[in-house]
């Protein structure tokens, strides 16, 4: 998967590149709009991450020229301005996502993965599995080592989210938004409690442990060798 980042702020650009490279992507970084536009038009990318406010050619112009040339690569905007008009303008021009600074890197990563997954044909799964944990999406029931576990509707939704995105760090804000449709920054305690309860049901009496806390970033469901 090859990504292009167009970002004029040095530190942010460098760390985005480092973070995304370490997450397993091939990353090109352009430090101004003109270079970015050139790269976007000549190279082939799976995703463009564009800063809107650039000193020369702004993110909108880059997106516009890409779309005019017939490119339908997914595009994510980064901006310091959270303003409905900007958001609407971005979406009208054909942007796929819009992230307001300051953002958590885990959030960016989660959204990048969502955008990249969008292109792939979804497999109509009826069961989700990891290790000996099984989630039956049709009968809405969960078993671990064949043992039936009772979950509330929201706990089921939470586990489904973690399982569908196994191996990804999911920030608390993303969990709140996906499971409970709560899109405001609220007491993040709530997510911690919900995860703790889910853990008590599916992880406590079993090994290996599946739900992991990544301090300062969020939660992840995966089989980890070291645990």
């Amino acid at each position, binding site marked *: 998967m090859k990504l292009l980042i167009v970002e004029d702020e040095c530190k942010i650009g460098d760390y985005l590149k480092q973070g995304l490279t370490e997450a397993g992507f091939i990353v090109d970084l352009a430090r101004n709009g003109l270079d970015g536009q050139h790269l976007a038009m000549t190279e082939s990318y799976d995703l463009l991450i564009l800063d809107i406010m650039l000193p020369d050619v702004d993110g909108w112009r880059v997106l516009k020229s890409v779309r005019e040339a017939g490119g339908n690569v997914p595009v994510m905007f980064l901006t310091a301005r959270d303003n409905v008009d900007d958001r609407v303008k971005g979406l009208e021009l054909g942007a796929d996502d819009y992230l307001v600074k300051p953002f958590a890197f885990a959030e960016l990563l989660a959204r990048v993965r969502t955008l990249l997954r969008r292109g792939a044909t979804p497999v109509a799964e009826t069961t989700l599995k990891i290790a000996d944990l099984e989630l039956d999406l049709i009968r809405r029931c969960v078993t671990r080592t064949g043992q039936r576990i009772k979950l509330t509707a929201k706990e089921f939704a939470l586990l489904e989210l973690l399982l569908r995105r196994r191996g990804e760090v999911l920030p608390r804000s993303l969990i709140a938004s996906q499971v409970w*449709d709560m899109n405001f920054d609220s*007491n993040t305690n*709530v997510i911690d409690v919900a995860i703790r309860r889910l853990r008590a049901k599916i992880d406590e009496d079993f090994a290996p442990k599946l739900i992991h806390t990544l301090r*300062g970033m969020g939660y992840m469901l995966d089989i980890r060798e070291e645990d």
Partner: protein
Amino acid sequence: MRRPTSLTLRLTLLFGIAAVLVFSGFGWLIENSIQRHFAEEDASELETISEAVSDVLFDTPFKSNRTALARRLDDILVGHHEASLQITASDGQIIYASSGPDLSVLVRTTTSAPGGGLAQNWSDGTDHFRGFVRSATENNQSDDPAYSIAVAVPIDNHLRFLNSFRYTLWLMVASGIIIVSLAGWAAVRQGHAPLRDIITQIHRISVNQLNTRLSPDTVPHELTDLAVSFNEMLGRMEEAFRRLSNFSADIAHDLRTPVTSMMTQTQVTLSQTRTVDEYQEILYSNIEEFEQMTRMINDMLFLAKADHGRSKPNIASVDLVREIRGLFEYYEAWAEERNVTLLVEGTATVSGDQLMLRRALGNLLSNAISHTPSGETVRVELDTSGNEETRIVVENAGAEILPEHLPKLFDRFYRVDRSRPEGGTGLGLAIVKTIVIAHGGTITVVSSRGLTRFRIILPKPVTQSG
């Protein structure tokens, strides 16, 4: 829109128009009465002459003696300066004609009547005369007019006098108008002096002197209202400005604290070589501070936008029970862990911005749950009274809030217990209040007998489509 005409000009014009009307009216009246006076004077002179003449005409000594008659008539005319007379017999023969203008014209154009026609003015080219024609009948036998008497007096003197009088009169009228208008203008200017004083006072008020007030007692009473309302506006501005300054100071303080702690921590950590775990620990701790700062920045931006009216509520119909249930689901696990029961009573549907209302209710609930002791209940009551306004009460049992905190509870960065920040930004309730106000509602809080109740009143929307 066109700018309205200046007050001075308006009032001066008004004075001017009034003066023109009054003075012209007077002028016209005076001119007319003098003219009438002259006309009456002339008429009475003509009458006197014609009566004297008719008396003489039928006197026996003069009946046959034309010469004597002529002499007698001359005598009559002597007393009347420059009067002229012409007597015509019924057969058209002129019996007597005095010197002066030819009165035949007058006789021809006037129907002579015994009672007397009206006096007429005419001119022979150079001089002007007034005269009339009378019929004289012997012994008043009306069907046999013996003579017609034409009498005239020159009126050039009168006309000359009238002309010069008219000139003086209208000159005076014009000066009167000008003087009154000028006086009006001066009076208006003078009358505006207190207004200019107020303007000078207002000019002197700068941002640093928002505590200055105009003194309503020293201005004319017509301007008292202006001074009072201006003072009230200044008061509101001063309050808003003070809040804003405090807000900036609070922002600085609330950002400085985490920055200082991070800086100290990081510098201390870097002062000697540490283990990987220790480095990780400091980075984790930094992330937590950053998250806190990010939340604060987002909350402040939300408030700033709402304050500038830049985030207009996106009005739609919102089922509050559904919102509350959704929030309950969200807070359920947390509340259960704290052994707090969540209850909702009543129903209500309002028109408002769903995301904003959810955020406001979420903040209130989260606040209530975190202050409720174990085993107690957070209760939400919804009530739409008579289709008018919607009441939302969020009530929790727990330690009462001291009365001195209540009025400031919705202030930004106000924390009842500064020593227990609980990871909040101190902006939660300020956001609730801002959202409620953006919906045209009010929020109040009471805390007594072990219960704290937040009550939101949302008005009935003016239009359904909004």
